[in-house]
């Protein structure tokens, strides 16, 4: 067994807040061996990030290390005469600064905000070199270029002079990693390194960290809430909850034989592939939904035969191009713009939950905005079946449009930005009722109370403002607001991606129950395949504005046909060490480039394939020859 690099002993960190003292970390001990990977797992507020910040002594100013030791020994500190206690050093003293960025470095979750927007990548990476080594600017630049090559920048020399905002999310995180590793630290702290990234990019970054770790022989302290990432990367796991270590051990032990109830609960709360049919997630804190009679009071039942008129929503050939901004009065040029949505056709039957999957920028949000008439497409049609009467959604005006708004409602991704902080919860939920003139004041109050019960919130909290609710509670307020008008169709745009894993299960189950009880229809937009797998009956896979594959849920997961779908599925890390990511056959960035998909899937100037039906409702965008091959 290799030497212990870092030993944290009974660490306690306190925060001074206006209301008193918050004990964020209450006696945490763990160790990291040289060259190994330790994962610190927990939901937000568990103190895992605070523990990491203490190791680097970059805690916020109102935080203090109250007690405990952080012993670091890389064989170089103290001239090799034993460990140094980081907790005893001055946070901004010379000794600590030499460790920070030199022997221990960190990468953060959000590569965009973690890099300065005003300095070039080369400047920021070589700055790290010059802080810790006596080298000239030119030598530092050479080292930076070498490091950028190691993190597989396509053109390291040019990358030195680019600014972070000119790079894609994946490349930004690579630049961040290069900056952290350029001084060859003994320990890399990775604080949610892939949470903000798309799955395929996440898989690439995980592989990169693994490769570099082997190359440079460093230890990694991985901080994450994603058990899938843990199962793929960590040697040892430390589970934290409310500032304490709940359980720790090797990866195999933790996943095969979880002892602590919290860890067991956490494992049961995560949506994963290969769940038994009908199996429900078990949220850590479950909620009950009740009531609903008032909501149903003025809901007209569907007349028999109404469904024969067509599906609830039918989208045909929708296209939307965002124009490039015109440049001033002089020298204006006609911009080509970007095609956000191209040739999208699908239908949603009443009572169905259709999942829409794709990576960021694939056009899924644009599409959902078109469906609710927040954006007007350039071409195509959207038809809505209102109790047997087919409505042309894009042609609606005035009163008819207002009436349509009652049928389709939207739940947003960000539970913080989507609720007005200056309105009470009552006002927020009642607002749709006021706008559509439903009921008098007394009746609205009754309805709002019922809606609170429906999403499992306490009706006594109606006078409160959104800030006093947690993320999951706020998202439920958003759902209550969307339900207030008793819509037929709910557009759910990444409803759980901003929530903690433990809360995800709660909201997902709530959505499932509501759909069942109220007979709702969902369009569930998400980038998380496991979540879509849990929720949806039918799945649409979208890439670069086009739907590339659509199939019933089982068919898609059993037999993915399109290379993009396959890449997506292959890139999802599963919370199961026995099913590791096949990191070797990840195509670097090729999976989401339509021109590089192999025939018959290629989309370029010469090839414009359409959706081909493979039977059983399984469609894939490919040349017509695919049918022959599939049959053969």
């Amino acid at each position, binding site marked *: 067994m290799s030497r212990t690099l870092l030993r944290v002993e009974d660490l306690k960190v306190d925060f001074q807040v206006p209301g008193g003292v918050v004990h964020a970390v209450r006696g945490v001990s763990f160790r990291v061996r040289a060259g190994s990977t330790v994962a610190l797992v927990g939901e937000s507020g568990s103190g895992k990030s605070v523990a990491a910040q203490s190791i680097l002594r970059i805690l916020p100013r109102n935080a203090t290390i109250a007690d405990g030791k952080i012993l670091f020994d890389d064989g170089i500190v103290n001239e090799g005469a034993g460990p140094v206690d980081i907790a005893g050093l001055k946070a901004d003293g010379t000794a600590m*600064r030499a460790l920070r960025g030199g022997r221990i470095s960190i990468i953060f979750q959000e590569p965009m*905000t973690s890099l300065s927007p005003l300095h070039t990548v080369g400047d920021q990476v070589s700055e790290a070199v010059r802080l810790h080594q006596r080298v000239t600017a030119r030598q530092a630049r050479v080292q930076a270029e070498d490091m950028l090559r190691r993190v597989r920048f396509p053109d390291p020399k040019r990358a030195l002079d680019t600014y972070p905002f*000119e790079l894609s999310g994946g490349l930004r995180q690579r630049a961040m990693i290069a900056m952290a590793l350029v001084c060859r630290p003994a320990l890399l702290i990775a604080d949610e390194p892939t949470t903000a990234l798309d799955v395929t990019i996440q898989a690439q970054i995980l592989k990169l960290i693994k490769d570099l770790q082997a190359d440079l022989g460093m230890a990694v302290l991985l901080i994450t809430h994603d058990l899938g990432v843990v199962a793929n990367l960590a040697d040892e796991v430390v589970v934290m909850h409310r500032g304490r270590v709940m359980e720790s051990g090797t990866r195999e032990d933790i996943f095969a034989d979880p002892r602590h109830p919290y860890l067991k609960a956490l494992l049961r709360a995560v949506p994963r592939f290969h769940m038994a049919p009908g199996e429900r997630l078990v949220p850590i804190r479950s909620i009950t939904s009740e009531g609903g009679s008032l909501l149903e009071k003025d809901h007209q039942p569907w007349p028999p035969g109404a469904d024969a008129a067509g599906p609830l929503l039918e989208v045909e050939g929708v296209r939307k191009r965002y124009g490039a901004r015109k440049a001033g*009065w*002089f020298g204006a040029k006609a911009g080509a713009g970007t095609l956000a949505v191209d040739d999208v056709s699908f239908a949603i039957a009443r009572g169905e939950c259709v999942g829409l999957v794709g990576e960021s920028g694939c056009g899924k949000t644009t599409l959902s905005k078109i469906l609710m008439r927040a954006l007007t497409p350039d071409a195509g049609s959207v038809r809505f079946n209102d109790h047997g009467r087919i409505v042309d959604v894009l042609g609606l005006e005035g009163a008819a449009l207002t009436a349509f708004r009652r049928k389709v409602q939207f739940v947003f991704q960000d539970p913080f930005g989507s609720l007005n902080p200056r309105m009470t919860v009552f006002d927020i939920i009642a607002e749709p009722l006021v706008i559509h003139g439903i009921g008098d004041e007394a009746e609205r109050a009754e309805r709002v109370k019922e809606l609170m019960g429906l999403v499992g919130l306490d009706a006594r909290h109606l006078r409160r403002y959104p800030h006093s609710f947690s993320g999951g509670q706020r998202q439920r307020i958003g759902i209550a607001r969307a339900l207030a008008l008793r819509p037929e169709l709910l557009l759910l745009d990444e409803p759980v991606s901003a929530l903690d894993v433990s809360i995800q299960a709660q909201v997902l189950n709530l959505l499932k129950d509501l759909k069942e009880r109220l007979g709702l229809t969902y369009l569930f937009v998400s980038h998380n395949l496991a979540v879509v797998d849990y929720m949806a009956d039918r799945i649409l896979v979208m890439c670069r504005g086009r739907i590339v594959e659509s199939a019933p849920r089982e068919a898609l997961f059993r037999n993915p046909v399109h290379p993009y779908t396959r890449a997506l599925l292959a890139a999802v890390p599963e919370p199961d060490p026995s099913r590791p990511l096949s990191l070797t056959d990840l195509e670097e960035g090729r999976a989401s480039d339509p021109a590089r998909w192999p025939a018959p899937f290629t989309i370029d100037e010469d090839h414009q394939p359409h959706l081909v039906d493979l039977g059983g409702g399984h469609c894939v965008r490919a040349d017509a020859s695919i049918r022959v091959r599939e049959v053969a």
Partner: protein
Amino acid sequence: MLGYVIRRILIMIPTLLAISVITFVIIQLPPGDYLTTLVNEMQSRGESMDQGRLAMLRETYGLDRPMYEQYALWLAGMLRGDFGYSFEYNLPVSDVVGDRLSLTAIVSFATILFIWVVSFPIGIYSATRQYSLGDYVLTFLGFLGLATPSFLLALVMLYFANVWFGTSIGGLMDPRYIGQPWSWGKAMSVFEHMWIPVIVIGTAGTAAMIRRLRANLLDELHKPYVVTARAKGLPPGRALVKYPLRVALNPFVSDIGNLLPQVVSGAAIVSVVMSLPTTGPMLLQALRSQDMYLAGSFLMFLAVLTVIGVFLSDLALAALDPRIRLSGGASR
């Protein structure tokens, strides 16, 4: 980038034209013209004016022509560097304004410099030591500066400057230098007198700037890239200057455009109180007596200053911030 600069300069032309139209309309808005004001004034003093002479004056100044012709004449004149004729002073506008403009420029420049030199360190101190005793004291002084009427401050300062330093009250120089050619003694006298108006005019601006810099910097100090800089091992001082301060500078720079005309015109009342030989009091008088060419030239001067100021701050912003330089117009 060059294309942007050229385009930006070209856009300034229609902007200034539009401003000139508005300026001309505004100075023509009050009923009557300079001559009717003059006649009224003479009548109130019991004097009278010969109708023939009045008509003659009206013709020489072009006041009997239609409005658009007057405007065209005025505009054409300005393009040739002829700003018209001041009725009140019976001199070409450029002669009337001449010296005052340069003094105004000196005072304004000194004021802006004062604002920056004072507000910059205080703003940084206040932001980095938020809610400390020093922050509270400086914040209190800042609000005091914002709230005190500048003419009151001017009177107080004049009194103490006279009592303590024996500086002569009012003006920008000792009375014996007025009308004299520039000399060492005159320059020294200007400097001796200038610090009071600079402080008085600059106080409100300084206080506002401190508040703004403090707010900007506080926003930036909590951004993740500051933590990144610390995590690299950068000493706190260098990290502060290189990263958050650099970003917080943007609003500072974009303020140049607003600051210039504000300092020039906002100082009018103070200038009246302190009888400074700057443009402010003259503009006031010209507007009151409907001395249209003088007033118009002043207003145009302010407009040009604003437009150039905004142009300069745009250029400085583009130089400072690669996001503006590189992604402007392309994304979104």
